[in-house]
């Protein structure tokens, strides 16, 4: 059992292992001794719960470690922002086609000016939506890190 415990401990991040591995192994040994004295079934049930708890703890410790990586925290909003921008591409291409067709029917300088104002306003709205989306992602990230502060 000691070997299985040590193998599961390898799932934890190195810093965590350096801090707690010896203590955790000592607690596990003591608890094993106690549960063995309570009978075979109690011992097996304890081992199942213990190993499940170790795996869950390792996943939590690892996921926390990944999220604390600054590169990951910057990359996730960036990738999400890019995906949102890609979603805006088809309407932009359609608008460009519309502008090309409209250009051939333009009669005056006034019509051209109106179209330019419309295009600029659309770009500002799209950019605003993208910025709001990324800011919202950052606030979600903060909430994940400090759930009780928000």
């Amino acid at each position: 059992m000691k070997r299985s415990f040590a193998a599961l401990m390898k799932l934890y991040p190195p810093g965590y292992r350096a801090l707690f591995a010896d203590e955790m192994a000592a607690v596990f040994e003591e608890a094993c001794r106690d549960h063995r004295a309570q009978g075979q079934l109690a011992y097996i049930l304890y081992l199942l719960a213990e190993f499940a708890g170790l795996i869950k703890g390792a996943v939590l410790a690892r996921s926390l470690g990944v999220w604390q990586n600054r590169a990951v925290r910057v990359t996730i909003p960036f990738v999400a922002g890019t995906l949102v921008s890609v979603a805006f591409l088809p309407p932009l291409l359609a608008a460009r086609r519309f502008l090309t067709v409209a250009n051939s029917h333009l009669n005056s300088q006034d019509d051209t000016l109106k179209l330019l104002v419309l295009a600029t306003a659309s770009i500002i709205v799209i950019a605003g939506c993208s910025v709001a989306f990324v800011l919202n992602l950052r606030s979600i990230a903060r909430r994940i890190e400090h759930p009780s502060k928000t």
Partner: protein
Amino acid sequence: MRHVADDKVTEPVLLILLSLAESPRHGYALLKDIESMSSGRVRLSTGTLYGALHRLLANDWIERVEGADTSRDKRCYRLTAQGHRVLVAEFDRLKELTQIAGTRLRASEV
């Protein structure tokens, strides 16, 4: 370890703080005390216990101290002044909630 700070007071965290409020304890003593405090309802696994201790150390709510047995695998944990304040605040919150629950339950019985 400040980077893993998370100031949520979950049930395991509350039980650990309560256990350490009485006296400094090492890992296994904490597990046994928590089990006895909750009348056997809460049985923390080693992974859950040390995950919670890790967060509590990061929050400076507890600290590691040298116990009578100074071996590396028998380190004791003690409540800090900040941890004590958090525990008192949580106790006040629960007391208030219990009072509200009592009032409402009595009202529903009438």
